[in-house]
């Protein structure tokens, strides 16, 4: 009796969590102009629309441009900072570590308003660099957290062993530390790209019509003229996510295989 209730509850919550994602996928292949079930017939028309209609095509290209820019900038800045924070060699390391997480905490709209005002003054509003900078601010925490975690996971004794075997510090860093930290860097990069891809709010404030991203385009389509192209776009998003998740899982398993601290 109690056990049955537990199983039922588990099934209910799992379906609450998963069902919405499953429901939206098939709608990307509808041949109707309505986003609803039942689906009258299968077609590629909305995917076709996605890649040919100017607004959609443009937005996909923009997302790739902004996403790549964000990934590179965030990964470089975040990785350097995580390396700098290692061992607490810099005063106020703890403060910086917390401060680097704050972009995740500050409400996006608040940051967006501030960026809009400032970026207009600086002349980067409504430009690609402006959007990339905005997205990078949001992506930074993910890179710092991931790289720091993989640096923390490196067994000190391996580096000491390398030093005892005659490697000078920069060689230890190059040949031991960096290769072991690479999985963290990669998964940080994946997170950065995913963050940029999904970002809407800052984009609303700092991007002009020329920098409309896919997420931004979906947002206004849902708002204005709901069309099954949204479901097709969602399909792209979800498959993209699964691919990124698989990459991360693979990278993580690589991390776990490499030297870990015994505890």
């Amino acid at each position, binding site marked *: 009796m109690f056990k049955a209730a537990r199983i039922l509850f588990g099934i209910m919550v799992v379906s609450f969590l*998963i069902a919405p994602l499953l429901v939206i996928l098939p709608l990307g292949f509808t041949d109707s102009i309505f986003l609803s079930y039942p689906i009258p017939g299968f077609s590629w028309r909305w995917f076709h629309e996605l890649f040919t209609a100017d607004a959609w095509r443009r937005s996909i290209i923009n997302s790739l441009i902004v996403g790549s820019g964000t990934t590179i900038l965030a990964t*470089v800045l975040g990785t*350097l900072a995580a390396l700098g924070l290692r061992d607490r060699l*810099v005063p106020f390391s703890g403060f910086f570590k917390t401060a680097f997480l704050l972009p995740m905490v500050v*409400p996006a709209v608040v940051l967006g*308003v501030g960026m809009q005002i400032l970026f207009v003054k600086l002349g980067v509003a409504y430009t690609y660099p402006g959007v990339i900078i905005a997205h990078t601010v949001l992506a930074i925490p993910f890179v710092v957290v991931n790289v720091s975690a993989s640096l923390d996971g490196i067994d000190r004794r391996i580096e000491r062993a390398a030093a005892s075997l005659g490697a000078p*510090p920069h060689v230890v860093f190059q040949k031991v530390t960096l290769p072991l930290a690479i999985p963290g860097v990669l998964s940080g990069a994946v997170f950065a790209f995913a963050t940029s891809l999904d970002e809407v709010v800052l984009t609303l404030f700092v991007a002009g019509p020329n920098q409309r991203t896919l997420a931004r385009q979906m*947002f206004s389509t849902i708002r204005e003229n709901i069309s099954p192209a949204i479901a097709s776009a*969602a399909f792209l998003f979800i498959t993209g996510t699964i691919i990124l998740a698989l990459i991360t899982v693979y990278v993580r398993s690589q991390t776990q295989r490499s030297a870990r601290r015994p505890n």
Partner: protein
Amino acid sequence: MRGGTPLRRHLAAALMLMPLVVFLGLFFVWPIITMLSEAVSDPVVVKTLPATTEAARAWDRQTPGAGALGQALVDDIRATTDDQAMGDVVRRLNSAKSGFRTLMMKTLSAARGSTGPLDLTTVDERWKDNGYWEAIAAAAQSRYTDRNLLAALDYARNPQGSIEALPPAASNNADIFKRTFVISGLVTLMCIALGYPFAMLAASVTGWKRQLLLGAVLLPLWTSLLVRTAAWFILLQDRGMINSTLLGLGIISEPLPLLFNRLGVVIAMTHVLLPFMVLPIFSVLIGIPGNLMPAAQSLGASKLRAFWHVLLPLSLRGVASGALLVFMSAIGYYITPALIGGPRDQMISSIIAFYATGTANWGMAGALGIILLAATLALYAVYHRLTSDRALRV
């Protein structure tokens, strides 16, 4: 060790940290400071009407304002060539006291159309009313104002300078704050109600069952927020899955209104934020030694009492950090209420976005932003304290 002198390593670490510190200083801290200063800065009158400002500061507010300030105002108007700045002044004054727009238009043309001394009371009778002069004097008081901040909380200064509540019709920010907190609170409660038992379930099973339950939590977390919101939009619409199922089963005869109302917003936000509740609770539950519940039972506690006295108090920390995380995220939410909610379900972020992009009233947007930011940071500080001594952070 060669080359590894401590000082060099410290310097290298600092150098590696520097780019990000500068970057975030420029593009994270500075925008927030800009927004803050926008909310409290009020320089138009001081900048555009320098002579009037000086005269207003010397004015005792008893003698007629026209005599003490009139000529200075006329001089300032004649000296100004920047029409846009003058327009800002008029808007600023009109927002403090209605009637200023027509009064200033009349005064502008009179002052520019003449030279030499000009008695403003002959231009318009209203200049005899010291109320208008007090408004100018108040605006000239400083480059900073608490007007936006007060307005954000539905307060304003009266002409005498003391703070009083605005009439209910004039502003509804307090209502929106209240609504934001109510919706966020509801979402938090829903997340606890679903998340706590779910986390317990996940902690009590092992192997593939646990993988499945946790996977169900992590998958939405991995999926685009926008996709999830779109999915709920599709599910909740009148012709959506939920309504057509219920109609098909004959449970209802007309579609339930689920979209563009409070219920839809709470459902969709609960879905989005549930993982942030489940994960901290799960990690706390996992850390509780498995023999405590049997111990309590062997000491005479029934399962229910053992839960109440042992498991619940020990897991409260996870519930608290989950609840803080959910509530903190919820009060700043923009996308989900904007897409799923109706006009009466818009939360504070939507209002900020409206002021910023809709009316370009950055002062108001900034002031509301300060309040939201302060609330968020306060909640985060508590969360940080609660979790920093244990590795619970998601």
